[in-house]
């Protein structure tokens, strides 16, 4: 009897210990965070936030892995690692493939962070992209409305003015844009191109479709896509674009006026279609020639351009089954839904010295310059004024880019993204390039693209080609 009682007591003690352990976890909110977190991303951007996160929580160690997105390498690596023991805890997901993940069951439900987006007035499109079937699985620190950047000097020379409103009126819709392109070509006697590539104009057309790529398991070839193909061909045939490939040397050379054709004749590019992140990450860093020289800083201006659009953006999500899911969730909260962090991020607080003070092993080029456009309207409203006088404003000849983006951000539509976008769009590049250079007819191009899509999506219903 005594023995039985003691067993019972022992059981009771164990039970109470378990209960208290369970109960103790929930209210202990300010409990210091601890542990190791594996974060994977396709750029070194989030690494800056990871170091700042470690500064806030000294007992947390973030192991950061960067895998470039070239040819879809990152996407493949994450897919292969998810669900295995090599799986990261937190993944960064780019706009082209974030939906694929949000629609899958591989990302954890982060619905309890959604109330924070109300306080921060996160742009609705940003939350919409991270949500599927009422479950939110990804958040972003960025909103990415697109813009149109042009060279003030060329505008003055060819269009007679570099005034923002007047130039906007000259490119207000696609017809006017083409008229302006013809003017620029004539004025530069063929040495001025209106844009670097046709490819960068894909996003404006893409954002203005009426339907996403896939509806009811059927591929939708929106009229805007057909329009884009014809537009790109017209730009190439008329010599309005330089013929460079996006993200290659020739395309970047146009940004700093070092573009030369094969004969050595200098060529100039009038404008670039780039979104919010394009200004601090692409245009501004490439505006100075690598081998010295004046560069084009101060000669740029930014307007809305012919169409409102959005381009890119990075979402962060927690992988289902992560052993550190609580810590991972805290990290997501810090990255995308923390007012202080977003403010620091956008205003250039995270300098290299700041990061080195937290982690002395920080590489010398790791830092976050001011100017990334954040997803919280509350933060945007607070900091817009601070950009009246900034290096980015100097770069744009005194214009406050942040204010302009703030006007464009609410118009962004998040409903057009689907999980298959990346594969469908990547399949179009090769046939389109062949059509533009004249090695394929339009009918052959559509057929080749539809074949490629059919090969990648065996179960998808493929419609007739628009041109046969």
């Amino acid at each position, binding site marked *: 009897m005594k023995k039985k009682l003691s067993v019972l007591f022992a059981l009771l003690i164990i039970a109470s210990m378990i209960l208290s352990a369970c109960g103790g976890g929930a209210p202990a909110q300010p409990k210091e965070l601890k542990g190791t977190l594996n974060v994977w991303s396709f750029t070194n951007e989030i690494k800056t936030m990871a170091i700042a996160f470690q500064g806030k929580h000294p007992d947390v160690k973030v192991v950061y892995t960067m895998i470039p997105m070239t040819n879809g390498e990152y996407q493949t690596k994450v897919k292969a690692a998810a669900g295995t023991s090599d799986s990261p805890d937190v993944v960064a997901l780019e706009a082209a493939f974030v939906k694929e993940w949000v629609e899958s069951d591989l990302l954890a439900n982060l619905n309890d962070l959604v109330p924070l987006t109300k306080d921060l007035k996160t742009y609705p499109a940003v939350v919409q992209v991270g949500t599927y079937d009422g479950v939110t699985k990804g958040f972003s620190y960025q909103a990415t409305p697109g813009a149109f950047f042009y060279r003030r000097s060329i505008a003055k020379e060819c269009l007679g003015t570099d005034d923002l409103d007047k130039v906007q009126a000259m490119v207000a819709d696609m017809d006017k844009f083409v008229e302006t392109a013809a003017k620029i070509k004539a004025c530069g006697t063929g040495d001025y191109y209106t844009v670097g590539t046709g490819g960068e104009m894909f996003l404006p057309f893409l954002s203005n479709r009426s339907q996403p790529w896939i509806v009811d398991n059927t591929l939708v070839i929106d009229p805007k896509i057909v329009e884009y193909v014809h537009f790109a061909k017209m730009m190439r045939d008329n010599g309005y674009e330089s013929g460079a490939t996006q993200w290659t040397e020739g395309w970047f050379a146009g940004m700093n006026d070092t573009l030369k054709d094969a004969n050595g004749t200098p060529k100039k590019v009038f404008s670039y279609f780039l979104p919010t992140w394009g200004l601090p990450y692409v245009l501004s860093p490439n505006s100075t020639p690598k081998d010295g020289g004046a560069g084009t800083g101060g000669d740029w201006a930014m307007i809305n351009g012919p169409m409102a659009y959005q381009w890119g953006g990075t979402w962060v999500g927690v992988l289902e089954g992560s052993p550190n899911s609580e810590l991972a969730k805290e990290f997501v909260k810090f990255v995308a839904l923390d007012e202080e962090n977003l403010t620091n991020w956008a205003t250039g607080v995270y300098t290299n010295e700041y990061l080195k003070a937290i982690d002395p092993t920080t590489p010398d080029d790791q830092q976050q310059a001011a100017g990334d456009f954040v997803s919280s309207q509350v933060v945007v409203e607070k900091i817009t004024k601070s950009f009246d006088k900034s290096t980015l404003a100097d770069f744009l000849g005194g214009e406050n880019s942040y204010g302009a983006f703030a006007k464009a951000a609410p118009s962004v539509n998040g409903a057009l993204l689907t999980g298959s976008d990346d*594969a469908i769009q990547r399949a179009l590049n090769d046939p389109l*390039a062949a059509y533009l250079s004249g090695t394929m007819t339009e009918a052959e191009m559509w057929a080749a693209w539809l074949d490629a899509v059919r090969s990648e999506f065996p179960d998808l219903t493929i419609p007739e080609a628009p041109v046969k």
Partner: protein
Amino acid sequence: MNFTQLKKNSTGYLFLTPFIIGFLVFGLYPVVNTLALSFTDATLMSRSSHFIGIDNFKRLFADNVFIRAVGNTWLIWICNFIPQIGIALLLSVLFTSARLKIKGVGVWRAIYYLPNLLMPAAVAALFNALFAYYGPANQFMVRAGFLSEAMRFLESITVTRGLVVFIQWWTWFGQTMIILMAGMTSIPIPLYEAAMVDGASVWQMFTRITLPLLKPILIFIFVTSLVGGMQMFDIPFLLTDGRGSPLSSIQTNNILMYMKFASSKGHIGAAASVGVLVFIMTSICALGIFYILRDRDLDQPKPARKSLDKKNAERPQS
């Protein structure tokens, strides 16, 4: 007696176990698993998968994508293998020739082998930059007057395939040459001396002595190159857009497999079916080579060759 024999054997087995375990885990299991996967609709983005019979294989033959990839692979491999073995044979004959006695053979050999040490990724990225529309190749060709205006090299099927063939040839002929030279130097010199005394020409010595004794080495080169060629991936993958652009003309078997694996949901079942077919195709071809080039002497010993065989008896040969 029995006990010691067992002990002896068990020591042998003990030494064999690391390899056998390694082979089972990293060799056999992936092959069996690939085969099993190829009959399912498994994807990386979903946890469950179903047995779908041979649907994956049916789909591969439903359009010409797979057949085109196989055709591309064979074309690129053959175009690279013929000059590769030809030039490697020529160079190794020159370098091992007892008459010419070329100086600094070691230096030449090292120079020809060097490209093989380069990372394929770096080589592909280099050629991609060289042949870009605004790249140095265009600048040179136009300024030197070879072209009237800049050309889109990497959008031309012939140029792009030619570049892949050239890179494959350039990085591998040195390796082939070294293996051939090793084979040639192991042929006993008295054979050539005897032939010279008999008044044989250089060509006769090459076809009657060098080639027959080199046959095992040639089969080895042929089979390894075939296996490597059928799995060609890195250079064509990185030279253009990772999809075998332009117009899928350098889309090889493995690029197609990788595309299916990396497609939106990660269709590993469909990718495995490509792997299985390539495995079957390569196996049949390799066995075919062994069959065609088998040592016919073993079937019907020819008395005329006896003297040569006797002279060569100390040399193990199969």
